[in-house]
C-alpha cells in the first residue's frame, strides 16, 4: 500500500463526507438511501437492464477518451462527437430502407464523430492550440448545431418537441436476450469488442506503440523517427470515431430517434471512466459498469425524492479522489506529468 499516503486518506474521507452531506442536504437518510439502491437497483432484473444499458455508451466513450489520453490529449469533446455521431446515424437511418440501414448508420456515426474530432487534432498538432479549449468550443457548437437541425430541417413535423421522427423497426439493433423486465441489447457486444480491440491495438501493434511513445514524451518520439503530428491527428480522429460509434449505437439500440440536448453530459462521465481504468484498457469494462451502476442508483434515488444532481457530486468526488491516488503513484514511480 505504498501509494496510500495520509494526504490521500484525508481527501478520501473529505470526499465521503461531502457525499453524506449532500444526502443530508437533500433531506435523505444515508442508510435508507443505500437500502433503496440495493433493493431497487442492484438486486432487480430491471435494475440490471438499466445498468447495462447505461454502461454501453459509457464503455465506448471511455474507450474514446482512453485512446486520446494515451497520446497525451484530453478529449473533453467526446460529448460533441457523440452527439454528431448520433445525429448523422439518425439521418441515414431515416432515409435508408430495410436492415441495410444498420451498418450504414453506424458508418455515418463513426464518420461524423471522426470528422468532429479531426480539427482538434489538426489545431493541436500544427497550431499548438490546446485540445481542451477546442473540444469545449466544438461541444457547444455541436449542441447548438444539432438543436438547430432538430428544430428545423430534420424535425418531425408531427412532434411538439425539437425531435426527429423515430427510425423504422428494421433499423433498430435487435436485443440479444429478452425476458421482461430484463433485456440485453446487442450494442453491448460492440462495446466489449471495442475494449478488446483497443487493448490489442495498444499493446500488440506498432501503431499502438507509436501512440504510447508520443504520449509519454513527444520529443523522444520525434527523435525516434515517429511522425508525431500525424499520430496526434490520427489518434484524435480515431478517438472521435469511437465516440461517434457510441452515438450511433445509442440511437439504433435505445433511443430510436434524435432530439435536442441529446447527451445527458456523457463527456465528463467518459473522462472518469477512462481515468478509473488507469493504464489498462480492459479496466474500461469495469469502470464503465461502475459508472453505469452509479447512474442507475441515482435514478432510483431520484424517484424517492433525492435529485439526480447527486450523481454529478458522486462522479466529481470519485474522479478527484482517484486522480489524487493516481498522481501520487506516478510521482513515486519517477515519471512526471
Amino acid at each position, binding site marked *: 500500500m505504498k501509494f496510500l499516503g495520509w*494526504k*490521500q486518506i484525508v*481527501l478520501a474521507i473529505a470526499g465521503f463526507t*461531502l457525499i453524506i452531506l*449532500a444526502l443530508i*442536504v*437533500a*433531506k435523505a437518510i444515508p442508510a435508507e438511501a443505500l437500502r433503496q439502491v440495493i433493493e431497487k437497483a442492484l438486486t432487480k432484473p430491471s435494475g440490471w437492464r438499466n445498468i447495462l444499458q447505461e454502461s454501453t455508451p459509457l464503455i465506448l466513450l471511455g474507450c474514446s477518451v482512453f485512446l486520446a489520453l494515451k497520446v497525451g490529449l*484530453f478529449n*473533453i469533446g467526446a460529448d460533441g462527437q457523440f452527439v454528431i455521431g448520433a445525429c448523422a446515424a439518425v439521418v441515414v437511418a431515416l432515409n435508408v430502407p430495410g436492415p441495410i440501414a444498420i451498418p450504414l448508420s453506424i458508418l455515418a456515426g463513426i464518420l461524423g464523430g471522426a470528422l468532429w474530432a479531426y*480539427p482538434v487534432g*489538426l*489545431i493541436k498538432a*500544427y*497550431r*499548438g*492550440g*490546446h485540445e*481542451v*479549449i*477546442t473540444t*469545449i*468550443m*466544438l461541444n*457547444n*457548437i455541436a449542441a*447548438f*448545431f444539432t*438543436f*438547430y437541425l432538430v428544430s*428545423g430541417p430534420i424535425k418531425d413535423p408531427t412532434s411538439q418537441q425539437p425531435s426527429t421522427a423515430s427510425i423504422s423497426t428494421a433499423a433498430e439493433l435487435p436485443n440479444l436476450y429478452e425476458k421482461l423486465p430484463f433485456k440485453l441489447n446487442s450494442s453491448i457486444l460492440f462495446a466489449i469488442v471495442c475494449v478488446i480491440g483497443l487493448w490489442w491495438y495498444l499493446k500488440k501493434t506498432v501503431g499502438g506503440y507509436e501512440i504510447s511513445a508520443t504520449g509519454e514524451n513527444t520529443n523522444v518520439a520525434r527523435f525516434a523517427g515517429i511522425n508525431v503530428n500525424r499520430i496526434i491527428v490520427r489518434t484524435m480522429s480515431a478517438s472521435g470515431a469511437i465516440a461517434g460509434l457510441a452515438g450511433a449505437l445509442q440511437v439504433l439500440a435505445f433511443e430510436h430517434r434524435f432530439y435536442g440536448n441529446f447527451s445527458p453530459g456523457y463527456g*465528463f462521465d467518459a*473522462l472518469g471512466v477512462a*481515468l478509473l481504468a488507469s493504464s489498462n484498457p480492459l479496466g474500461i469494462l469495469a469502470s464503465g459498469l461502475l459508472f453505469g451502476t452509479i447512474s442507475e442508483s441515482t435514478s432510483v434515488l431520484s424517484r424517492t425524492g*433525492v*435529485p*439526480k*444532481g*447527486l*450523481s*454529478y*457530486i*458522486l*462522479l*466529481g*468526488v470519485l*474522479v*478527484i479522489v482517484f*486522480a*489524487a491516488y493516481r*498522481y*501520487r503513484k506516478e*510521482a513515486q514511480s519517477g515519471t512526471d506529468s
Partner: protein
Amino acid sequence: MELILNLLAAPGSNVVVTLLLSTLAYSSPLILGALAGLFSERSGVVNIGLEGKMLAAACATAFVGQASANPLIGLVAGIVTATIFSILHWVLTQVYKIDHIISGMGINAIALGGTSLIAKTYLDISEKEMPTFPVAIYYIAAWVAAVTVWYLLKTTRPGLRLFAVGNNPDKSRQMGLKPLVIRFQALLATGLLTGLAGALIATNAGKFSEDMTSGRGYIALAALILGGWKPWPTLAAAVAFGFFGSLQLILQGQNSSIPGQFWQALPYLITLVALAGMVGKNRAPAGLGQP
C-alpha cells in the same frame, strides 16, 4: 435583464442605446469571469472550473439572499462559496498535484450537482423574492476590476511576481519567490471575481435556476484565450462576445433568416477559428500547468 427587455420593447426607443445597454448587461459577467481566469492562468493554474464557481456563486447568492432577505449577506455568501471552490482547486492542483484539467472538471461536476440538489430540494425558499443590489453596481465593478487588473499586473510588484511564477515556476523559485503562496493569492482573486460574476447572473434573473450560467464560464475562458491572456485584449474579447449575445437577442425578435443558434454558437466559432489561425504562435503563459 427585465429592465433591458422592457427597454427593447418600448416603442420609439433608440436601437443604438438599447444595443449598448444590453451589451453592457451581457458582457459584464463575461468580463468578471475572464479576469478571474486571467489571475489564475497567469499564475500558472489552468482553470476550466470558472463555470462551476460562477454557478455555485449564483446559487449561494440567490438562496442565502432569499433566506436572509438581505442582499449583502447573499452577495457575501456567493463570493465566499466561489472562493471556497477556488481554494479547493488550489489544494487539489498544488498540494495533491492532480492534473489541473481533471480538478477543474471535477469542481464543475460537484458545483453542477450540488446546486441542482439544492434548487430541487428547497423550492420553498426559491419562491421568495430575492433581495438585490442594482445591477449597475456590478457593471461598474466589472469595468473597475478590468482597470485594476491591468494596473496591478503591469506596474506593481505582486503583479510582476504573478507573471514570473506563471511563466517559469522553477526560475522564480530560485529567485526566492514562493509559487504556492502567489498562486493561493491569485486563486483568492479568482474566487472573488467569479463570485461577483455568479452574483450578477443570479441578480439579472431574480432567482436561481439549474445550470443558469449555461456555459458562460466557458465563454469567459474563450475570451481569455482569444485575448492572449492580456488584460485589455481579454476585456475587448469579452465585450465583443457580449455584443454578439445582445445582437442575437435583438435579431431573434425580427424573424431573420439566420437561426438564433448561430448567434449563440458564434463566440465558440470565433475562438475556434482564431485558434486555428494562430500560426505556431502559442501565447499561453509558459508555465501553465507546471508544478
